Protein backbone atom coordinates (compact mmCIF):
# COMPACT_ATOMS: atom_id res chain seq x y z
CA UNK A 1 0.00 0.00 0.00
CA UNK A 2 3.04 2.23 0.12
CA UNK A 3 3.33 2.74 -3.63
CA UNK A 4 1.78 5.95 -4.81
CA UNK A 5 -1.15 5.30 -7.08
CA UNK A 6 -0.79 6.82 -10.49
CA UNK A 7 -2.84 9.86 -11.44
CA UNK A 8 -4.37 8.07 -14.40
CA UNK A 9 -6.12 5.49 -12.24
CA UNK A 10 -7.46 8.25 -10.00
CA UNK A 11 -8.89 9.98 -13.07
CA UNK A 12 -10.55 6.74 -14.15
CA UNK A 13 -12.04 6.32 -10.68
CA UNK A 14 -13.31 9.91 -10.64
CA UNK A 15 -14.90 9.23 -14.01
CA UNK A 16 -16.65 6.06 -12.78
CA UNK A 17 -17.84 7.80 -9.63
CA UNK A 18 -19.00 10.82 -11.60
CA UNK A 19 -21.02 9.08 -14.25
CA UNK A 20 -22.85 6.56 -12.04
CA UNK A 21 -25.37 7.69 -9.43
CA UNK A 22 -24.77 4.61 -7.32
CA UNK A 23 -21.55 2.68 -7.78
CA UNK A 24 -20.01 -0.04 -5.64
CA UNK A 25 -16.31 -0.90 -5.93
CA UNK A 26 -16.13 -4.52 -4.85
CA UNK A 27 -14.33 -7.84 -5.10
CA UNK A 28 -16.12 -9.95 -7.68
CA UNK A 29 -19.42 -9.20 -9.33
CA UNK A 30 -22.95 -8.60 -8.05
CA UNK A 31 -23.75 -12.18 -9.06
CA UNK A 32 -20.55 -13.68 -7.67
CA UNK A 33 -19.07 -11.57 -4.89
CA UNK A 34 -15.60 -12.83 -3.95
CA UNK A 35 -15.54 -11.63 -0.37
CA UNK A 36 -17.96 -11.61 2.54
CA UNK A 37 -17.92 -7.85 2.92
CA UNK A 38 -18.67 -7.27 -0.77
CA UNK A 39 -21.39 -9.87 -0.58
CA UNK A 40 -22.97 -8.05 2.34
CA UNK A 41 -22.86 -4.73 0.47
CA UNK A 42 -24.62 -6.30 -2.53
CA UNK A 43 -27.24 -7.90 -0.30
CA UNK A 44 -28.06 -4.48 1.15
CA UNK A 45 -28.33 -2.79 -2.25
CA UNK A 46 -30.47 -5.62 -3.62
CA UNK A 47 -32.71 -5.47 -0.59
CA UNK A 48 -33.27 -1.77 -1.29
CA UNK A 49 -34.13 -2.57 -4.87
CA UNK A 50 -32.07 0.28 -6.33
CA UNK A 51 -30.21 0.34 -9.63
CA UNK A 52 -26.46 0.34 -9.17
CA UNK A 53 -23.22 -0.21 -11.02
CA UNK A 54 -20.38 -2.36 -9.72
CA UNK A 55 -16.67 -2.25 -10.45
CA UNK A 56 -14.73 -5.47 -9.82
CA UNK A 57 -11.38 -4.38 -8.39
CA UNK A 58 -9.98 -7.91 -8.77
CA UNK A 59 -10.07 -7.40 -12.53
CA UNK A 60 -8.10 -4.18 -12.34
CA UNK A 61 -5.05 -3.87 -10.09
CA UNK A 62 -4.70 -0.13 -10.75
CA UNK A 63 -8.22 0.59 -9.61
CA UNK A 64 -7.76 -1.79 -6.69
CA UNK A 65 -4.81 0.30 -5.46
CA UNK A 66 -6.16 3.64 -6.63
CA UNK A 67 -9.52 3.39 -4.91
CA UNK A 68 -7.82 3.27 -1.51
CA UNK A 69 -5.99 6.51 -2.17
CA UNK A 70 -9.01 8.11 -3.79
CA UNK A 71 -11.14 7.83 -0.66
CA UNK A 72 -8.35 7.46 1.93
CA UNK A 73 -10.09 4.23 2.85
CA UNK A 74 -8.06 1.02 3.14
CA UNK A 75 -10.64 -1.57 2.19
CA UNK A 76 -13.11 -2.68 -0.44
CA UNK A 77 -16.14 -2.60 -0.86
CA UNK A 78 -16.70 1.13 -1.16
CA UNK A 79 -20.03 2.72 -1.99
CA UNK A 80 -20.36 6.04 -3.80
CA UNK A 81 -23.64 7.86 -4.24
CA UNK A 82 -23.91 10.86 -6.55
CA UNK A 83 -20.18 11.39 -6.42
CA UNK A 84 -19.83 11.11 -2.65
CA UNK A 85 -18.03 8.35 -0.80
CA UNK A 86 -20.55 6.83 1.62
CA UNK A 87 -18.48 4.11 3.28
CA UNK A 88 -17.77 0.41 3.38
CA UNK A 89 -20.08 -2.46 4.27
CA UNK A 90 -20.11 -1.75 8.02
CA UNK A 91 -21.28 1.82 7.48
CA UNK A 92 -23.76 0.63 4.83
CA UNK A 93 -25.21 -1.85 7.34
CA UNK A 94 -25.49 0.77 10.08
CA UNK A 95 -27.14 3.21 7.70
CA UNK A 96 -29.45 0.50 6.40
CA UNK A 97 -30.56 -0.38 9.92
CA UNK A 98 -31.19 3.25 10.83
CA UNK A 99 -33.04 3.98 7.59
CA UNK A 100 -30.48 6.57 6.46
CA UNK A 101 -29.37 4.55 3.48
CA UNK A 102 -32.92 4.18 2.18
CA UNK A 103 -33.24 7.94 2.39
CA UNK A 104 -29.93 8.62 0.70
CA UNK A 105 -30.69 6.21 -2.14
CA UNK A 106 -34.29 7.28 -2.46
CA UNK A 107 -35.46 3.70 -1.98
CA UNK A 108 -38.92 2.70 -0.85
CA UNK A 109 -38.99 1.79 2.83
CA UNK A 110 -38.77 -1.91 3.65
Amino acid at each position, binding site marked *: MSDASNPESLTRIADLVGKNDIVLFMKGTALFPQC*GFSSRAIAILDRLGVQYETVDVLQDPEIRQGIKAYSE*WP*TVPQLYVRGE*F*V*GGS*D*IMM*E*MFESGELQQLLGAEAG
Partner: protein
Amino acid sequence: MAMAASEIERLIKAAIPDAEVVIRDLAGDGDHYAARVVSRSFAGLSRIRQHQQVYAALGGRMGGELHALQLQTAVPQMEKSK
Protein backbone atom coordinates in the same frame (compact mmCIF):
# COMPACT_ATOMS: atom_id res chain seq x y z
CA MET B 1 -0.91 -13.36 8.15
CA ALA B 2 -2.74 -12.82 11.35
CA MET B 3 -2.78 -10.30 14.12
CA ALA B 4 -3.62 -10.75 17.79
CA ALA B 5 -6.68 -9.02 19.18
CA SER B 6 -4.57 -7.53 21.97
CA GLU B 7 -2.29 -5.94 19.40
CA ILE B 8 -5.24 -4.35 17.61
CA GLU B 9 -6.52 -2.98 20.88
CA ARG B 10 -3.07 -1.68 21.83
CA LEU B 11 -2.67 0.19 18.55
CA ILE B 12 -6.11 1.77 18.74
CA LYS B 13 -5.59 2.89 22.33
CA ALA B 14 -2.16 4.28 21.55
CA ALA B 15 -3.72 6.60 18.99
CA ILE B 16 -7.05 7.23 20.72
CA PRO B 17 -6.23 7.15 24.45
CA ASP B 18 -9.79 7.44 25.77
CA ALA B 19 -11.10 4.72 23.46
CA GLU B 20 -13.14 1.87 24.83
CA VAL B 21 -12.31 -1.05 22.60
CA VAL B 22 -14.17 -4.33 22.42
CA ILE B 23 -12.84 -6.91 19.99
CA ARG B 24 -14.40 -10.17 18.97
CA ASP B 25 -12.56 -12.85 17.01
CA LEU B 26 -15.27 -13.82 14.55
CA ALA B 27 -13.84 -16.97 13.08
CA GLY B 28 -11.39 -17.99 15.79
CA ASP B 29 -8.57 -17.78 13.25
CA GLY B 30 -6.94 -14.56 14.42
CA ASP B 31 -7.78 -13.02 11.07
CA HIS B 32 -11.43 -11.99 11.13
CA TYR B 33 -12.36 -9.55 13.85
CA ALA B 34 -15.16 -7.24 14.83
CA ALA B 35 -14.26 -4.18 16.84
CA ARG B 36 -16.40 -1.64 18.58
CA VAL B 37 -14.60 1.57 19.43
CA VAL B 38 -16.18 4.24 21.60
CA SER B 39 -14.44 7.56 22.10
CA ARG B 40 -15.31 11.14 22.90
CA SER B 41 -12.92 12.20 20.17
CA PHE B 42 -15.47 10.97 17.60
CA ALA B 43 -18.01 13.60 18.60
CA GLY B 44 -19.06 15.70 15.65
CA LEU B 45 -17.27 13.52 13.10
CA SER B 46 -19.00 11.69 10.26
CA ARG B 47 -18.92 7.90 10.38
CA ILE B 48 -16.34 7.91 7.62
CA ARG B 49 -14.03 10.17 9.61
CA GLN B 50 -14.51 8.07 12.74
CA HIS B 51 -13.56 4.90 10.91
CA GLN B 52 -10.65 6.65 9.22
CA GLN B 53 -9.25 7.53 12.65
CA VAL B 54 -9.31 3.88 13.65
CA TYR B 55 -7.72 2.84 10.37
CA ALA B 56 -5.06 5.50 10.88
CA ALA B 57 -4.40 4.08 14.34
CA LEU B 58 -3.80 0.69 12.72
CA GLY B 59 -1.22 2.38 10.54
CA GLY B 60 -1.70 0.68 7.19
CA ARG B 61 -2.19 -2.82 8.57
CA MET B 62 -5.83 -2.74 7.60
CA GLY B 63 -6.31 -4.49 4.30
CA GLY B 64 -2.88 -6.07 4.61
CA GLU B 65 -1.78 -7.88 7.74
CA LEU B 66 -5.27 -7.42 9.08
CA HIS B 67 -7.62 -8.83 6.50
CA ALA B 68 -11.05 -8.45 7.99
CA LEU B 69 -12.11 -6.04 10.67
CA GLN B 70 -15.78 -5.23 11.03
CA LEU B 71 -15.83 -1.83 12.58
CA GLN B 72 -18.37 0.00 14.63
CA THR B 73 -17.65 3.39 16.16
CA ALA B 74 -19.63 5.50 18.57
CA VAL B 75 -19.49 8.45 20.91
CA PRO B 76 -20.09 7.60 24.60
CA GLN B 77 -23.80 7.55 25.37
CA MET B 78 -23.68 10.19 28.09
CA GLU B 79 -22.33 12.78 25.69
CA LYS B 80 -25.06 12.08 23.18
CA SER B 81 -28.14 12.38 25.34
CA LYS B 82 -28.10 15.59 27.24
